[in-house]
């Protein structure tokens, strides 16, 4: 069936099985590969995107549920890569292999939107769905605090 969806401000009409996870619709149909596949079972957070501003695990979210909604992926987070979270990530050289980082950044942005000055515990609670096999957790914590500091 055809599904109208807005991804990063662009209105798209996708021809998709309504059950297709949003992840594959974004990657294979819309051709945006910044959003990552890590587990396919809502266990790792690599596929985190925002739907109407809320973080969702796109591997476990049917594309039909996003019909008529606004999806933001890592590519649409900022025009020039200068969202405070992205900047903090670079300043602290958070990424190692980088693969989990789009999901980490999207989850961190959602956390800061809700809670502009999170404690370590808040961060642990909000970010524990996002696995980083390279082990960048301590830098992610520091980068979230840093981004919180520069958020007005």
């Amino acid at each position, binding site marked *: 069936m055809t599904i109208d969806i807005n991804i990063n401000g662009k209105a798209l009409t996708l021809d998709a099985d309504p059950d297709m996870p949003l992840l594959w619709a974004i990657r294979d149909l819309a051709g945006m590969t910044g959003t990552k596949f890590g587990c*396919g*079972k809502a266990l*790792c957070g690599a596929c985190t995107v925002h739907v109407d501003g809320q973080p969702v695990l796109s591997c476990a979210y049917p594309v039909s549920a996003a019909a008529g909604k606004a999806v933001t992926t890592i590519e649409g987070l900022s025009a020039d890569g200068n969202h405070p979270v992205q900047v903090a990530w670079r300043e602290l050289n958070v990424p190692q292999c980088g693969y989990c980082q789009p999901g980490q950044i999207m989850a961190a942005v959602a956390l800061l939107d809700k809670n502009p000055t999170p404690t370590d515990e808040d961060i642990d609670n909000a970010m*524990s769905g996002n696995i980083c096999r390279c*082990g960048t957790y301590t830098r992610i914590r520091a980068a979230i605090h840093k981004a919180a500091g520069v958020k007005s």
Partner: protein
Amino acid sequence: MNDAIKGIRLVTRREFIRNTGLAGGGLILAAHFSGCSTDQELPGGDFAPNVYVNLLESGDVEIVCHRSEMGQGIRTSVLQVIADEMEADWDRVKLLQATGDAKYGDQNTDGSTSIRKQFDLLRNAGAVARHMLVLAAAEVWGVPASECIGQNHAVHHAASGRSLGYGELAGQAATLSLPEKVEFKSPEDYRYIGKPMDTVDGMAFTVGSAAFGIDTVLPGMLYASIERCPVVGGTLVSVDDTATRAIAGVVDVIQLGDGTSPPVFNPLGGVAVLASNTWSAQKGREALNIKWDLGANASYDSDAYREQLESSVHNEGSVVLSRGDVDAALSGAAKTLEATYYAPHLSQAPMEPPAAVARINADGTCEVWACTQDPQTAQGVVAGALGIEPAQVTINVTLLGGAFGRKSKPDFIAEAALLAKKAGKPVKVTWTREDDIRHGYFHSVSAQYLRGSIDADGKVTAWHQRTAFPSINSTFGPSDGPGGGELGLGCIDNPYAIENMKIESCKAAAHVRIGWLRSVSNVYHAFAASSFADELAHLAGRDAKDFLLELIGPDRHVNPADSGAEYDNYGHDIAEHPIDTARLKGVLAEAAKMADWGRTLPAGHGLGIAVHRSFLGYVATAAEVSVSDTGELKVEELWTAVDAGTVVNPDRVRAQMEGAGIFGMSLAMHGQITAKAGAIVQGNFNSYRVIRMSEAPKAINVHIIPSQAKPCGVGEPGVPPVAPAICNAIFAATGKRVRELPLRNVKLA
């Protein structure tokens, strides 16, 4: 040639035309007297003195990274080394990723080798360019080269105050013949080496434009998902794909045949579903109705195998190291101790699962895009699978979303190539997480038996170790136990100053594909040896850290060959890279100091420490843990000291140690792959757990010992000390000794 004549050079017809706008005849002789002018007419063109460096006429420099980036930061480090020796401006260098090609030398990004083995090769690539640019300028100016220096993207002649930019000199340098030998910069002049340069891929990583193997998209490409036999060595009996073909988006179902014995790097075979998108391929695959003959490995049960392994190490094996008389020392000892340690199979589980895209071109050649650690091996394996020559296969190396040894095996790349050939279209193969965890090349399961003794003064008098694990060699041919190279990973390279020592290797057969995982056999060897050393400290009633320092003993160079062992020292001459006990004690003392060893801890808390040399690098880690009344374990903080010799990028070394802390915690606390009826039980991150944010320590503190010694490995050496440090800390906190991993199987209360 005297200096005056050096100032005269030929101007080519092309230059003459360009410089004068006139089409004059033939060659003319132009004289440039030194000091008369700085705007020389120089031949244009680029300058590529070797396969790693290409200086463009514009002055921009293309630098080739021939190693794979998987999170260790090698793309940044390669750039740092070459640009530094070249004296190139950081803002004018651009990184290109090499395809797999023997002309680049060793590209196998494995064994923490990039810098430890290729530092001089990379330095040379840059230094040759600088050297030739200096010669070129000297020739242009007619001055001795010894009066010129290449600095910050230009060559300068101090006596006359002249300078020429690298770009201006490119064409001239290209006319020179390669030097036999060049001088490297002295370390105090380093601009980038030793500096925490930002990751070159930092922007791409944070905006989602970084391209991994899984991200390649080609026009007309099909997406494949492959159902493989649950047991290694099993074969396909029949497949009914009726339901699959009815699923929207499914384009084709292709049989890949069976795997090979030995498995080597070949695909496991199976049935592939090809579709217009990944989701349809996965759904189609689920609808397949397949009958397998599971084969001989269907009897593999990892619980029963554990008993076999433990019985194997309770019997004599073949002696691989021996000095003194262990039995005599044990029988005459004041106190003795024995212990058996066990650690299970592990999966590398990189966040990006294996994924590759292949296309067969009209002329029969093949082009691949893949997250591979070893593009030249991939080239050979793909060529073999397709029945073409390696030169007909191009391997484009993407970024790797983690690897940890998994992506040094190109089985998944050969799958894509075979399917592309059969489908007649480009094909992307994406492994699911379940595929990755069930069909991998697993880290060996292992058992270690340790026996030791101390005399009345608490000095260790005997060390007897038996090790058993299925070898990586079994992946390539017949094997019934540990390989020689694997014994050199933390076992026969034992650095302890003990008069009587015997190490034996015991039998162990493989029933799954065995492969490398970050730091390989060092994981279980360090777990056993560093735990047993801690047990002996307790037996002697001594402080664990002080005892360990004494156990390592006086400053000296240890050579396992002196005790009859065949030791390959990670492929390096042991005279150049000795097992240096002073460096080992150095990191141990530093980690203890960082952790404020000996301080009073809250109830339920304990500090533990371990030190290990691997891949030539020395790492000590101290861990503080807390164990609650209900037995809940938390790793509170880690302190790691590393001596890796000369360090190219201290921030990336630090990151590797932080990451190794988490990787080591994952295997210590959660990691286990088990098998029932030959099939792997775990399937995703709920059953194969890894450390998450909530379990991460509040800090992983890293200290890099300043050193100008030759560079050592960095990516792996941080892992081995972590598990024993945690287990020793648990003992300090609770008095409970842990002799098996993972800790989730151990009741701590």
